[in-house]
């Protein structure tokens, strides 16, 4: 009876007796089982060489990451490569968001801007950013600018789309309120539009960031002398699975770190987000 009626009030905690079933269905227990199984299987497959020598054991990967931190590969330690990738992303990402977000806001607020920009944007939108790699190498060579260009292209689309939709999906009642209170068009934009569109803009930035990682890796896989993409492609060419996997782990960590950073920025810059979500 309690389980039905109190479902929504489960915050009322009562100490339950520890039974076999409650241990077996405990979240943390299951997490532990799952991770043990995952790493166990990985280790077993690598140890028994079921996939040939193309998989490194988890501890070998860790070892190799330590090795890469202390030894330079093409002039950079692992930190250097991670920073090379991250720097490209930060540069491209900032340029793209500084152009795309205002443009998206303008498109949503002004129908003439919308009528001019939207068709061209729609034309470019379905083209995956990775398809631009070849043309950007033709234009900028294989140096830094071509990678930044790819990232700008890739991050531009989600930034602009989310800023645009964020403003368009603002609840019309909010405008009505401002108008009733005698607000001008300027008040409408500054007091309603921007604050209400902010969470959507930040969601766009998060999407952009994951696209940016895909782009920078693709660009580095095709041609680079530094960066985490270079590490894994080098590992492939040298036939060292530990290097490839170590690079992948570093990529995952770096990607996680940058997205946490944007999440943190969002919390600082836009503390009203939760209230809007609750509406």
């Amino acid at each position, binding site marked *: 009876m309690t389980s*039905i009626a109190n*479902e*929504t009030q489960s915050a009322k905690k009562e100490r339950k007796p520890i039974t076999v079933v409650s241990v077996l*269905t405990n*979240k943390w227990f*299951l*997490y532990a*089982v*799952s*991770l043990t199984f*995952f790493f166990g299987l990985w280790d077993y497959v690598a140890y028994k060489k079921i*996939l040939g020598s*193309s*998989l490194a054991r988890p501890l070998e990967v860790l070892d190799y990451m330590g090795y890469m931190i202390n030894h330079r590969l093409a002039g950079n330690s692992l930190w250097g490569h991670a920073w090379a990738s991250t720097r490209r992303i930060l540069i491209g990402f900032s340029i793209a968001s500084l152009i795309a977000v205002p443009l998206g806001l303008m498109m949503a607020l002004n129908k*003439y801007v919308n*009528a*001019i*920009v*939207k*068709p*061209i944007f729609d*034309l*470019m939108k*379905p*083209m*995956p*950013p*990775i*398809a*631009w*790699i*070849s*043309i950007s*190498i*033709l*234009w900028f060579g294989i140096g830094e600018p071509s990678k930044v260009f790819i990232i700008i292209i890739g991050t531009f689309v989600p930034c602009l789309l989310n800023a645009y939709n964020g403003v368009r999906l603002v609840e019309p009642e909010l405008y009505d309120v401002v108008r009733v209170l005698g607000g001008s068009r300027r008040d409408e934009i500054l007091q309603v539009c921007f604050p209400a569109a902010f969470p959507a803009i930040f969601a766009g930035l998060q999407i952009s960031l*994951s696209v940016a*990682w*895909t782009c920078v*890796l*693709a660009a580095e*896989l*095709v041609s680079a002398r530094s960066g*985490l*993409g270079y590490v*894994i*492609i080098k*590992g*492939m060419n040298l036939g060292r*699975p530990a290097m*490839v*996997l170590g*690079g*992948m782990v570093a*990529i*995952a*960590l770096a*990607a*996680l770190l940058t*997205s946490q950073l944007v999440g943190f920025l969002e919390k600082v810059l836009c503390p009203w987000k939760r209230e809007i979500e609750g509406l």
Partner: protein
Amino acid sequence: MSFEEVKVTKEPLMVILPIISIIAFFGIWQSLLSFGVVPSSLLASPLQVLKLFIAKWTQVNPDGALLTTHMWTSIQEAFTGYILALLVGIPLGLAMGWFPIVEGLARPIFELIRPIPPIAWIPLTIFWFGIGIPGKVFIIWIAGIVPCVINSYVGVKMTNPVLIQMARTYGASSWQIFTKICIPSALPMVFGALQIALAYCWTNLVGAELLAADNGLGFMITMGRRLAMPDMVLLGMAMVGLTGAVIGVVIDAVEKRLLAGIRR
């Protein structure tokens, strides 16, 4: 009661502006090359791209396959990976949303794999599968499975708790609640995943083909770069965009048909 049809006449300027914008875009592009502002080794004019597009229907050279062959290879790879991703990802996500055991077991592994961009798997897949179709399907599968799992999971989690409690009150079993209430109410989210997953798959297909392929649209773009033929690069890009857009429209139509009765 009769309804009066409201006629919305668009301002003529709003109709003309998009057309002008498109024409200006292609016009500037064409004139950049016609007047030699940009050397033809860097960019091909729209007309050149169009010419190559027509030629590639019948001409195998210089990249070794017809345009249709490239497209067919790409579509085949993308769809195999996409469908496999749907088949695994959606049931997994739904089950993760409802059964705590499945969530407890699958979630940590999923969270470990999720932050790695699918492109980063390319070197490993080349170790494992070589450069043939299976490797690319694997990359696309990884790319597609993430949005499928997340959306179906969130879809189930967002089920209205009142409905679940009502079903419990009437004595429905856990399995019945899952199949009769949670899955239908998650459907709109699941269909949202179809579009997102497709976009991911298509992006990563190009990435996989750029690196290791002997066929396909991504390969065509790479060949264009290696042969220093900007028109071929641009044709490849245009075809990738066009095919992706067409598939997106088709999925949108299917989604509308299937979800006709569900209010969103």
